[in-house]
């Protein structure tokens, strides 16, 4: 009996996620982001020191390759804030019983396209395979919702489309090999599919949203950070707003800086023409767009990716409004 108790205690200790030691308040703010053009503010802000300066040097940037792993880190307390796609953030919000994160600002709107080889309509894709960047990410949800709206299943079969989540690089390679009839991808991959694989844009996602705006990248923070270190969150938002304004004022110059930062991380900056094409479809925007996020949440819930729940508490723009007023 005693052995069983000890074993149980050991097991419980080994399995204990999310009950980590509280980090001291003066430690660096841990900020997640991806090496992606749609994370332009993070790429430029980390590299030229804008974010660290606002935080008084207390910045610990962490690079991720995909939304789910960044959200895992945020939920278990390994991150304080993160730039992330709207899809994974919505899923993480509901999965954590609405306790795991708050959206404090938008970052980028637009910048997602369905590129096809030769299809002229949704019906032409029936029975074929279409790529998306990741199960449950913003583009994956958009693709499945769009297919269903056109009467097609997203689970394959003759009256459906086989949606295949692949990494962006694999989407490009498979599209080029002819293994994919299309791919719903974020920029710059849409531009690359067009320029390097002879694809054609069938749907620009901006055409599906009122006003042509929808959240692609957003800035989320953990409620713990929001509660215990609001000054640091405000500093992060000051930097974020400044970077967004710089991007809006000089899209070309800022895009070049973002591309250089992207090249430093991936070893391969984008060609000028691809970069210009990609940037033409996205828009830096610090508005967190709660209404559009709520709609995205409904889509994700309808697909069974997120548990049901009310999305109204997801956005907390109080600090953003204060920062923007100044």
């Amino acid at each position, binding site marked *: 009996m005693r052995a069983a108790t000890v074993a149980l205690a050991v097991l419980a200790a080994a399995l204990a996620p999310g*009950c980590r030691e509280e980090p001291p308040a003066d430690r660096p703010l841990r900020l997640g982001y991806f090496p992606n053009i749609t994370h332009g503010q993070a790429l430029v802000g980390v590299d030229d020191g804008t974010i660290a300066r606002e935080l008084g040097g207390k910045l610990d940037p962490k690079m991720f390759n995909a939304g789910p792993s960044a959200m895992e880190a945020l*939920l278990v307390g390994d991150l304080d804030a993160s730039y992330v796609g709207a899809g994974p953030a919505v*899923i993480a919000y509901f999965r*954590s019983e609405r306790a795991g994160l708050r959206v404090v600002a938008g970052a980028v709107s637009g910048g997602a396209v369905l590129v096809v080889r030769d299809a002229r309509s949704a019906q032409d894709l029936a029975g074929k395979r279409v790529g998306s960047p990741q199960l449950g990410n913003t583009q994956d949800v958009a693709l499945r919702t769009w297919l269903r709206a056109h009467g097609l299943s997203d689970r394959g079969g003759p009256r459906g489309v086989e949606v295949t989540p*692949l990494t962006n690089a694999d989407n490009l390679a498979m599209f080029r090999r002819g293994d994919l009839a299309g791919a719903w991808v974020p920029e710059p991959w849409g531009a690359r599919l067009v320029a390097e694989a002879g694809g054609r844009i069938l749907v620009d996602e901006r055409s599906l949203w009122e006003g042509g705006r929808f959240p692609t990248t957003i800035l989320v923070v953990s409620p713990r950070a929001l509660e215990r270190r609001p000054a640091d969150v405000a500093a992060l938002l000051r930097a974020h707003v400044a970077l967004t304004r710089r991007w809006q004022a000089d899209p070309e110059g800022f895009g070049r800086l973002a591309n250089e930062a992207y090249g430093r991380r991936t070893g391969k900056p984008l060609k000028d023409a691809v970069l210009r094409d990609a940037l033409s479809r996205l828009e830096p925007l610090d508005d967190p767009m709660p209404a559009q996020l709520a709609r995205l949440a409904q889509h994700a819930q309808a697909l069974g990716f997120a548990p049901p729940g009310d999305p109204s508490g997801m956005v907390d723009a109080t600090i953003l409004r204060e920062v923007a007023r100044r």
Partner: protein
Amino acid sequence: MKGAALLAGGLLTWELLSRLGPWPRWLFPGPAAVASSLVAMGADGRLGAAVLRSLGRLAQGYSLSVAIGVPLGVATARSALVRTAVRPVVLGMQALPSICWLPLAILWFGLSEAAILFVVVMGSLLAVAIGTEDAVSSVDPILLRAAGTLGIRGPRFYYGVLLPGALPGVLTGLKLGWSFAWRALMAGELLFVAGGLGQLLQAGRELLDAAQVMGVMVAIVAIGMTVDRVLFRVLELRVRRRWGLVEAAAA
């Protein structure tokens, strides 16, 4: 009776840990949440389709492993030349976890069924071959000598004397090969999207759905146990009875 009580106690402890533990419940769901996730996956057909797909792959890969591994094992045991040439390679590669074959599989076969099959075959082939070799090497020499004296040669010797004599041992190799194939398959399916249980597991992770992850793990354990209990236990029992080993053990 005692087993059922222990199981119920275990499930109860798990549920209580999940509800009362210091960690968030969605990160460590209890058996009720896991069961309802399993039911949901079963109801919308995802679980059934994944199980069929995984078992189909397993059947193909495993048959290939057996078809290559058993002759290879016999050859290694019977021919000094093959033994010198092949044995060190087989033993060496057995130390390689099957997942290590995956990068090569993707380079050679692309993101395809063939890539996963390749990983499954490489994962289980060597276990089957080594098991067969051991079994054949330890066949009672008196049997072999008697066969020689009676002038039994060629195919009749292999199918009538050697393989039946080695069968109990070969079966152990096959069983080991099966569990290796199962592991290799999960590794292969986890790495890219191609249906199957491994992918369902990965989907649970990507949607931060710990209940789904645990549900798929339960399904994997259940299938593994069923195959082991039903298929191999029955086969083993029949072989042992046929060879008079059951009675010997009982006595």
